[in-house]
């Protein structure tokens, strides 16, 4: 009788200890804040996706017939702003990082729980500003807010949107600050830097960029707003102000921001590849330090966005060389993941399928980045679809795929439930096929000379554009499916148990979902990261 009662009484965890709305909105628990972020950025992802859909529909035919050119300008601007500032930047750090970093280092919470909650509220205020501006009629400056168009000529809601970006930047700063302090000060006994999971290393590197870069774009955007409000003219050529200075300041953040968007994704891939090859990540130290190298080098390459903007040839040469250098640590990571697979006991579960997608797509995205870093090719393809295809390979083929890999990998930990494996594999396949069909044709289009940011194009480009739009519709199905089956799994999914993948790492050594305080006793770490050699290779039955 007593055992029967025990079996029906669920252990208290972070989800079921309190169900009130207040307990969610005032929570200081990093796990609950991660869930709040998950819901918010998923909404923003579908807002951005909606704009993308309209863009692709417009480009189905050569004539600009679905929307006017002004509307089209607004569509790509709002697509970029929603996706970059309100989805990609917070995606892996604010959701998975928030949830996992304390668990992975054996801490009870992040160093500053109130700051963590504040960051979510700040993010929501920023998102409200941006969304309100969109509803009032939108903004058409491009996500880059280039001056003097944004300061003097645009008649759209620049200030509201800029304030939204400015405010959400502080959410990012607070998240980054919290991660750095937490990883320095809150690690469990025995968890040295050399034993730290690579997910923590890469989020640490991304946090360094958030902390050092975001304030610069904040002041830059503030100056744009001041210029619109008070006509102070710092970037206004009519007064002798320099629009190039805006571009320098903007890209000083916004290029490193690309690494905020990719480094945490690389961390996810390291975890997933090690788990499903059942091997230690090959060259752990090099992968860890490559993250730091990318963060440091990332600050020295910003002007490669400005080759044709009128910077000096000598500056362009130096920035070109430095941009090539970023390829080295990135390649170190790709080669080391591949070497990890070598002679591993590979299992083809959904997170691993996404990881394979990532390695392939990121390699293409990265290598085309090397093309763009070289001056001659860049001049030829500047502002064409080649550039669009390149950064979507990194941002979508890289970060979104890594985010999905991470969500599938840790969903059992976050919710205690397994998602339906068959549907998940199908969606991974759809994402891969749909993505390639969408963006591979754009490389060709760009190389043939189709410029970006126009709502009409010459008829000879139509076939490739139709392919791209067809791919986007497949991609859309691939993104909607996980949302449906993740929600479905909350109610109908099988119980996952503490460690469904038989993975190593402190986060797998506590319950699923974890209790509010994460660990009953603070763990003491005496082993290396990814110690799969000593992990009993038992047949995993739970949830499969």
């Amino acid at each position: 009788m007593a055992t029967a009662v025990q079996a029906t009484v669920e252990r208290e965890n972070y989800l079921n200890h309190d169900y009130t709305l207040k307990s969610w909105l005032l929570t200081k628990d990093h796990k609950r804040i991660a869930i709040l972020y998950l819901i918010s950025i998923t909404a923003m992802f579908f807002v951005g996706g909606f704009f993308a859909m309209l863009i692709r529909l417009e480009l189905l035919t050569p004539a600009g017939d679905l929307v006017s050119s002004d509307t089209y300008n607004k569509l790509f601007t709002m697509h970029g702003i929603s996706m970059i500032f309100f989805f990609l930047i917070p995606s892996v750090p604010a959701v998975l990082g928030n949830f996992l970093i304390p668990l992975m280092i054996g801490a009870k919470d992040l160093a500053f729980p109130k700051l963590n909650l504040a960051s979510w509220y700040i993010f929501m205020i920023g998102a409200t500003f941006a969304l309100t501006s969109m509803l009032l009629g939108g903004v058409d400056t491009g996500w880059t807010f280039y001056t003097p168009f944004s300061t003097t000529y645009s008649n759209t809601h620049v200030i509201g949107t800029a304030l939204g970006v400015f405010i959400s930047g502080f959410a990012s700063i607070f998240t980054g600050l919290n991660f750095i302090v937490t990883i320095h000060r809150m690690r469990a006994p025995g968890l040295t830097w050399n034993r730290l999971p690579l997910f923590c290393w890469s989020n640490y590197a991304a946090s360094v960029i958030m902390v050092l870069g975001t304030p610069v774009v904040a002041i830059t955007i503030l100056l744009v707003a001041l210029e619109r409000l008070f006509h102070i003219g710092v970037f206004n050529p009519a007064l002798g102000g320099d629009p190039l200075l805006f571009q320098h300041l903007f890209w000083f953040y916004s290029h490193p921001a690309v690494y905020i968007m990719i480094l945490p994704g690389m961390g996810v891939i390291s975890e997933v590849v090690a788990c499903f090859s059942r091997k230690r990540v090959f060259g752990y130290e090099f992968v860890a330090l490559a993250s730091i190298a990318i963060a440091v080098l990332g600050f020295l390459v910003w002007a490669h966005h400005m080759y044709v903007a009128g910077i000096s040839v000598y500056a362009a040469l130096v920035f070109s060389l430095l941009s090539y250098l970023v390829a080295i640590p990135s390649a170190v990571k790709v080669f080391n993941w591949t070497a990890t697979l070598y002679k591993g006991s590979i299992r083809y579960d959904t997170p691993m399928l996404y990881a394979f997608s990532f390695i392939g797509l990121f390699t293409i995205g990265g290598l085309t980045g090397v093309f763009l870093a070289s001056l001659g090719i860049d001049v030829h393809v500047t502002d064409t679809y080649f550039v669009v295809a390149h950064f979507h390979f990194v941002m979508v083929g890289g970060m979104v795929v890594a985010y999905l890999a991470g969500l599938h990998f840790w969903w059992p930990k976050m919710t205690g439930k397994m998602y339906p494996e068959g549907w998940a594999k199908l969606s991974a396949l759809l994402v891969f096929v749909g993505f390639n069909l969408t963006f591979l044709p754009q490389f060709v289009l760009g190389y043939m000379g189709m410029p970006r940011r126009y709502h009409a194009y010459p008829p000879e480009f139509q076939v490739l554009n139709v392919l791209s739009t067809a791919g986007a519709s497949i991609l859309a199905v691939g993104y909607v499916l996980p949302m449906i089956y993740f929600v479905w799994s909350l109610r109908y999914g099988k119980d996952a148990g503490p460690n469904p993948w038989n993975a190593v790492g402190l986060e797998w050594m506590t319950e699923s979902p974890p209790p509010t305080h994460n660990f009953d006793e603070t763990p003491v770490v005496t082993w290396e990261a990814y110690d799969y050699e000593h992990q009993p290779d038992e047949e995993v039955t739970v949830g499969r």
Partner: protein
Amino acid sequence: MAASDIEIAEHNLQHHFADMDQQRETSTFGMWLFLVTEIMFFGGLFCAYLVYRATYYQAFVEGSQTMNIWLGATNTAVLICSSLSMAMAVRCAQTDQRKMMVILLIVTMVFGAAFLGIKAVEYHEHWTHHQFPGPNFQFEGADAAGVSPQNVQIYFSLYWAMTGLHALHMVIGIGLVTWITIAGARGHYSADYYSPVENVGLYWHFVDLVWIYLFPLLYLISKKHGG
């Protein structure tokens, strides 16, 4: 240590820290990191200043000539004094002299308010002389000096943006000092738990330090030096 001090310390230990030392080190580390982000925040403006000062040096000289050096110098002295009283307040917090700490914090606030008062006088002067960027900007004597009034306007844009942002930080700083003064008067701090006082102190010193750079850069541009 008195029994009440131990109670203050235990009361203030948050659940996710092992002990007070870890908590104190963590919060101070966080504050330093926050100040790094502040440096980067102001850094964007300093960068713009450097670029335009190099490009329009003569216009910057003309703009700088309109500054009231005596008011600026007084304000510099006021802020240095406020930093001294702030540093002494932190020391008092560490050594459990609560009454003295509260007095010194109030002194710090008075200095801070004096700074903002003097700054307001200066702003008023500039405003009445149309030295505020925008459609109503006027600058007499630009032609005589052979510089474009529009370039002088860029100097004033940066002047207002930089000192305005600094003044905003002063207002926030006074708010923070008010908060720790009230908490200190109620006996919330002890030799075992003074992190908030220390961290607000760090912030205050940082804001002072920004002014130490702003004063020479905006008020004391040399007429003789060529660039």
